[in-house]
């Protein structure tokens, strides 16, 4: 103690100062991080430089693209809402209970995430047209129910839902993993059934996770292309969504229109992500 005081008085403060600076840490971390951010910004900047406002305006005025825009917004919203409906109970069950076959279910949930998109579309197509004796799912839906699916708009939603739901389930499972199950236990001792404990205690705590899962499902549905192409086709004004528009415009050599639609998709994604994030977590977080 005396030594320390003496040194301080003697002006040898530098001897006790930490020599290491935090600057290299921040430089390395932000240097690595900025590579990715820069890549994305450059991609968008390149698109912006490639097209002009006139090209963009001409593209979005096309009735085919307007129709694709409407179907995209509608199908993504329906797929995201369906996903959150399924993901909430499934995520809760996987998070809270240990039951036979849990590992298998956990693996099945991940299959749409790892499966190549085209394979998923092909599998959907086969499922709907595989004959079971004299019975076929698509024929039954078309002839008996009056609700044909394949190569129509419901196929677009189903293809989007198949992938986006898997991402929503993952998000909801992590959400419930982070919520203390003890509160639900206490609620049960107070008189709740398991259902009431879920609805009144766990669910209100999971709203941020639900918004995050919906956002991820929506964004995932927007980017879906492969399964839609195989299962719903790419019929203009009928099953065309913006991702298929880019493909169709490219295939007929309309590069300017393809880039314009790509930018439109970027704009929609940014708007939806920002709105949901502001709703869910507030501007500050």
């Amino acid at each position, binding site marked *: 103690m005396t030594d320390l005081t003496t040194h301080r008085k003697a002006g040898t403060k530098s001897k006790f100062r930490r020599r290491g600076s935090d600057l290299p840490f921040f430089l390395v971390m932000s240097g690595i991080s900025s590579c990715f951010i820069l890549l994305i910004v450059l991609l968008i900047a390149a698109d912006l430089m490639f097209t002009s406002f006139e090209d963009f305006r001409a593209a979005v005025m096309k009735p085919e693209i307007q129709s694709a825009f409407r179907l995209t917004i509608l199908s993504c919203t329906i797929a995201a809402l369906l996903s959150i409906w399924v993901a909430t109970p499934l995520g809760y069950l996987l998070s809270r209970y240990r039951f036979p076959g849990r590992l298998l279910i956990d693996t099945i949930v991940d299959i749409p995430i790892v499966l190549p998109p085209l394979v998923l579309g092909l599998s959907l197509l086969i499922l709907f047209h595989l004959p079971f004796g004299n019975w076929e799912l698509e024929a039954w839906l078309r002839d008996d129910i009056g609700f044909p699916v394949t190569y129509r708009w419901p196929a677009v939603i189903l293809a989007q839902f198949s992938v986006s739901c898997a991402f929503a389930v993952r998000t909801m499972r992590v959400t419930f993993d982070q919520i203390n199950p*003890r509160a639900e*236990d*206490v609620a*049960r*001792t*107070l*008189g709740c*059934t398991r259902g*009431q404990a879920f609805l009144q205690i766990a669910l209100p*705590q999971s709203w941020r996770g639900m918004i995050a899962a919906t956002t991820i499902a929506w964004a995932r549905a927007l980017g879906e292309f492969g399964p839609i192409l195989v299962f719903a086709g790419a019929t203009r004004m009928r099953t065309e969504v913006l991702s298929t528009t880019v493909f169709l415009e490219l295939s007929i050599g309309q590069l300017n229109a393809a880039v314009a639609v790509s930018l439109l998709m970027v704009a929609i994604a940014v708007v939806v992500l920002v709105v949901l994030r502001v709703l869910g977590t507030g501007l500050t977080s």
Partner: protein
Amino acid sequence: MIEFQNVCIRAGDFQLKDVTFEIGSGQYAVLMGRTGRGKTTILESLCGLRRVQSGKIMIRGMDVTDWPPGDREIGYVPQDLALFPTFSVAEHLKFALHLRRFHTTQIERRVHELAEMLGITHLLKRQIEGLSGGESQRVALGRALSFRPTVLLLDEPLSALDAETREEIQTLLRTLTENTGVTTLHITHNAAEATALADRCFHIVDGQVTEESMNQTEQASRANSTAS
């Protein structure tokens, strides 16, 4: 009032075998034992959150072994309190009463009575976030006692509190249990706490629950305080 008859419970790696003890109506019992010996497991089995392998659990002379937790009329305060993050203090006190479909005026009357008893009237409109340890403890106690349970289970309720607050809550616990006549089982590591509160003291040793006389507990408490 509370009776364990040859109860066997498996929890992870360890097993409690032939747990047998009884606590009379209105008594304040303390359960002591080293960490990881199954104290919380016994509490969870009693309130129905953990299944028992064999044996019987009786409350008020009724076999409740297979009853769901909500039917056992037990107030439970876990170690981490597990308050409901989306509820206000008043909502905590109302929750069990709403589930029992009490009339609004009855609920309001009970909430104010409880809040006064616990000294948390000024906190009723507050959310849980930002409550102090002592305040949170009072809210958890109020939630557990709101529906006038016949049994109160406390899992180390004073362990995370500073000395002054611990003293306050200890006095409050004694007053509450005397006024309500609720049969209480309280887990603690602290012999002094046991001496101050309990009518009876149980120990878990090698998976068996044995009763210790209060004199022995008092001696242990004195030995601990001398050592420290």
